[in-house]
């Protein structure tokens, strides 16, 4: 097992100018350490859709790497996206799955498939070009510089220590405004013709 914080720091070191689509608990650690917040999209109002938003960006901007930081409960809600991604086969698509085996935001209830479902095999069987699984930070930190050079789609499953939240997520006008602002910030970086509305 590894901590969210450590896993995110390893990913950040190789990130370069990749667009990051981030969801769930890893978002707070990513935001604290991001060198390019203008290229970050937090999926705060559309659970499970990080992989699909990331796929659209990867197809539309093939010259730019896209890092999707997904959760196991989230991906289970959009499992068909593995096949959709593999069919499009974007070489710039890197899919990190933070596997904590629970719905951490809602109090720690187990997700379906704990001890049975194998996300690496699911990605491999869906047609991802490369898949890996890590349950210790040292091995992941050693391998990731080379993994980050592979041709995507790449799936990397990371076994992380659970951080249970209490009280759920409070949606506010301010929090709801973040995702549309983030999409426009990334577009400003990727589309020189864009005139913000």
């Amino acid at each position, binding site marked *: 097992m590894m901590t969210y914080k450590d896993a995110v720091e390893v990913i950040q070191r190789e990130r370069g100018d990749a667009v990051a*689509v981030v969801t769930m608990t890893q978002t707070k650690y990513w935001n604290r350490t991001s060198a390019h917040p203008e290229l970050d*999209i937090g999926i705060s*109002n*559309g*659970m499970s*859709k990080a992989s*699909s*938003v*990331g*796929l*659209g*960006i*990867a*197809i*539309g*901007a093939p010259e730019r790497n896209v890092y999707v930081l997904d959760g196991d409960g989230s991906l289970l809600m*959009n499992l*068909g*996206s593995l*096949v*959709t991604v593999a*069919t*499009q086969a974007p070489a710039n698509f890197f899919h990190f799955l933070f596997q904590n085996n629970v719905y951490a935001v809602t109090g720690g209830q187990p997700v379906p498939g704990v001890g049975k479902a194998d996300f690496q095999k699911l990605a491999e069987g869906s047609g991802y070009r490369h898949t890996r699984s890590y349950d210790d930070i040292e091995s992941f930190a050693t391998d990731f510089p080379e993994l980050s050079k592979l041709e995507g789609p790449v799936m990397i499953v990371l076994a992380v220590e659970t951080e249970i939240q209490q009280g759920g997520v409070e949606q506010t006008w301010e929090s*709801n405004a973040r*995702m*549309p602002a983030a*999409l426009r910030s*990334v*577009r400003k970086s*990727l*589309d020189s*013709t*864009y005139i913000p*509305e």
Partner: protein
Amino acid sequence: MADSGLKASRLISELELQGVTHVVTLPDSETSGMYKAIQASESISLIPVSREGEAIPIAAGLWTTGKNGVVIIQNSGLYESGDALRGLAIGVALPIVMFIGYRGYSRHGDTPDSSARLLEPYLHLFRVPYYVLETGQDIDRIALAFDEARRTHMPVAVLVGTEYEDEEIDAT
């Protein structure tokens, strides 16, 4: 097949005129003719999805890169896409046009198909404006839909109430 006068090739020409770069879709019977025509298009790329709920988020990602994607799904798939429509179209002010196959549509209004009966109330619930295509004479409504999406920065639906006429399309 109804003689609707609605030809997929005309629709594709309209999409090309609107600068559409990608069609994100899960096929349905109302829009199957369109599928073949998109395959034959040189300027529009097809992105097939495994489940309709993926379509709007993919289109949102495309928009983020400056591409112009449209969604083509059936009304039953739009119901499955409800949370994506809420969060990743309306919630982010995405100026997207969605072509919705109007399964069960009857201009007489009386239909046993709940997928048809609930479609317009559903769009009203989400406050999504829409235009209906019944015949080839309605093709100009597509431009109206794109204009409205751009003007309001919000999703707009085009409801396809008939099947496209058979055409000889080389999709190789």
